[in-house]
């Protein structure tokens, strides 16, 4: 096993290593960028077509009015949660292993929220009128409907997005100053100069910085929990069988953390290779995230079982019918696949040998996310094909290529934003890694001192 970064990296080397990631990534970076761009192109093409012709080209129909767009929307919202978990919650808990990886997790939060926001637009029948859902003062005195969970959604997401952008930015200020000081003159240096807000690293600045960062972190945690609870309310507050489940908010939050952690593993592996961060994103850190993911996977599995049990024993015939139909009907392969990926695959992470095996964990993390995406789809669609009204049962509408294309394109869009960010900004927090190394060296010195003291004592005793 590799040595822990906290023992092996020279403090002064950190700047150079991280700054190099802004200049010379491995060639794979450009391959990923081109692939992502073409995926995004496919998505844009599909959306333009749908915009021109109408939502009908997505092959949604009258009882089946929601489809992959809403499912993928929840998926992307969910993905955004782990950034906050890593950077805010673990920050408060003083878990210092998060330090080399929290920056990219935060960027993941921001960009997956942006992607989710796009799906709201893509889903709307008249997206050119989306501003009707914004409570702006207007001459007609018409407000949005504050009773609607969709409106809460729009507000929660917008608040969460703006807060996490601020959080990401604030956390980066000292690093931006390093970039400003070390890079050659050019447009990037100008950019960093502006963004660094005149950071000099004085005592007073550090003190203010700490307070601000902590405050925003504390502000962000309840926000993260509320955002996905509200997304869950879209379903839980409705009246439909299969959606009207009290345990949905915690279930959604657990699912969000789950898919987010899995995505962190995926991106961890990619970044580690592409930006040559092998010395920073070390295997012990991977092991820590894997353990965290496993714990969350078990929470999710439990809440999943709670949902099934509460529906099963509820004596609500309609909900029960939806559940039975999920397990035996036309969606059964996907439903079983979701349970397999979500609840069985994580047990691979129990095996110590695999916890630090990059290929295995990469594959597992992709499977977990596949499971979580299917979970969202299995929440949205089966209710439409087996709702209250028997006349419309077995109305199964398969998504067309347009729907799949836009879902596919969203992954390209996310990758594009994310990889662009990592190329433009330091994706490993330099100052926090230095702190970590410093604290560890202090601790080591302490241990050494006490050891030598013991040895001296022994020697003294021996002399006598």
């Amino acid at each position, binding site marked *: 096993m590799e040595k822990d970064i906290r023992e092996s990296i020279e403090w002064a080397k950190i700047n150079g290593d991280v700054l190099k990631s802004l200049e010379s990534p491995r060639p794979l970076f450009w391959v990923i960028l081109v692939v992502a761009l073409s995926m995004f192109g496919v998505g844009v093409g599909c959306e333009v077509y749908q915009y021109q012709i*109408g939502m009908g080209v997505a092959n949604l129909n009258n009882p089946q009015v929601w489809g992959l767009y809403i499912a993928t929307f929840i998926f992307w919202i969910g993905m955004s949660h782990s950034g906050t978990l890593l950077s805010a919650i673990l920050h408060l808990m003083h878990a210092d292993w998060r330090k080399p990886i929290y920056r990219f997790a935060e960027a993941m939060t921001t960009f997956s929220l942006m992607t989710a926001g796009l799906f709201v637009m893509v889903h709307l029948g008249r997206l050119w009128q989306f501003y009707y859902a914004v409570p702006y003062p207007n001459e007609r005195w018409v407000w949005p409907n504050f009773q609607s969970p969709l*409106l809460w959604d729009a507000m929660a997401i917008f608040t969460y997005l703006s807060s996490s952008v601020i959080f990401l930015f604030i956390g980066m200020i000292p690093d931006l100053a390093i970039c400003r000081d070390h890079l050659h003159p050019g447009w990037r240096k100008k950019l960093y100069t502006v963004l660094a807000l005149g950071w000099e690293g004085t005592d007073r600045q550090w003190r203010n910085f700490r307070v601000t960062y902590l405050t925003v972190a504390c502000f962000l945690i309840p926000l993260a929990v509320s955002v996905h609870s509200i997304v869950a309310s879209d379903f839980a507050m409705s009246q439909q069988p299969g959606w009207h489940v009290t345990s949905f908010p915690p279930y959604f939050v657990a699912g969000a953390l789950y898919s987010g952690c899995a995505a962190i593993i995926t991106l961890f592996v990619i970044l580690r290779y592409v930006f040559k961060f092998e010395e920073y994103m070390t295997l012990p850190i991977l092991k820590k995230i894997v353990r965290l993911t496993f714990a969350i996977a078990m929470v999710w599995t439990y809440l999943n079982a709670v949902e099934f049990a509460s529906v099963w024993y509820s004596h609500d015939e309609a909900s029960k019918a939806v559940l039975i139909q999920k397990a035996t009907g036309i969606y059964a392969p996907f439903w079983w696949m979701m349970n397999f990926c979500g609840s069985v695959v994580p047990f691979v992470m129990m095996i110590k040998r695999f916890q630090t095996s990059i290929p295995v964990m990469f594959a597992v993390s992709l499977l977990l996310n596949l499971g979580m995406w299917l979970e969202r789809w299995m929440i949205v669609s089966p209710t439409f094909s087996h709702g209250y009204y028997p*006349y419309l049962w077995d109305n199964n509408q398969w998504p067309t290529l347009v729907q799949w294309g836009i879902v596919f394109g969203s992954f390209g869009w996310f990758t594009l934003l994310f990889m662009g960010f990592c190329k433009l900004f330091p994706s490993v927090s330099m100052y926090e890694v230095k702190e970590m190394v410093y604290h560890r060296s202090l601790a080591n010195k302490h241990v050494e001192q006490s050891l030598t003291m013991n040895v001296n004592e022994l020697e003294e005793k021996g002399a006598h």
Partner: protein
Amino acid sequence: MSVSNMLENWSKFRHMHPVDDKPHEEYKWAMSIDLDACSGCNACSVACYAENNLPVVGKQKFDAGQQMHWMRIERYWDDDGREFPDQGAQFLPMLCQQCEAAPCETVCPVGATNHTADGLNSQVYNRCIGSRYCSANCPFKVRYFNWYDYPTTDNVWPAEMTQQLNPDVTVRGKGVMEKCTFCVQRLERAKNNARTEGRLVHDGEVQTACQQACPTGAITFGNLVEPESKIARQWAHQQVELAARDKQAKDEQEGGSDLRGYRIFEELRAYPSVMYLERVRESAI
């Protein structure tokens, strides 16, 4: 919008729920459909197409489930082992139930669907942004979304056919939700006439298109507030109450009853304005 407007007490504009609040004053439009009289002939559906400018989407889109029939006749085959030519069927005309506590109204993010003082569940096409949450939350699935730009691009009405469109009803563009309105254009015209003459609308003065077209007179429509109207007498006779919770008289009597009136999904407490009269005769072949 000035600051004083913004500080005004906006709660007075809030949508109030007629079941929990004050009763309807002048009008409460309601319907009853006698399933015993319904022969499943689809005349109501055709009349609705003609009256409300519903797009005729064509076979392909109908198969894809993108049809726009506000009034649909549902056919339920008898399950008694007989094969098609001998198999009996029952029919149920389904239209927007104009619920008093409509599940669609609370979930619309922009408030495009609202309750009127007449107890109608109205849809404001211009306000709709097409989130389709209303349809997702409708237990009856009677809301229809404009999946395409039906009026202009899909050739739903060939050029010579546009002359038959009803000028009282707007055509709906791409991306908005629509549904049965209880022929609100007819209701408004009758109300205006009555108002000019300083009276209320007489019973039978206004008919919905489906009611007018029904050859067996299965559909009754009218003002539930007026105690002597046909619809109010029918509801009273069947002991069906608008604000009843979970159960009607018919469900409460043990060992069956002579009452036939019921509302669909009573237990969801949507308080529909459409009463169905249970079928008593054997299904026709």
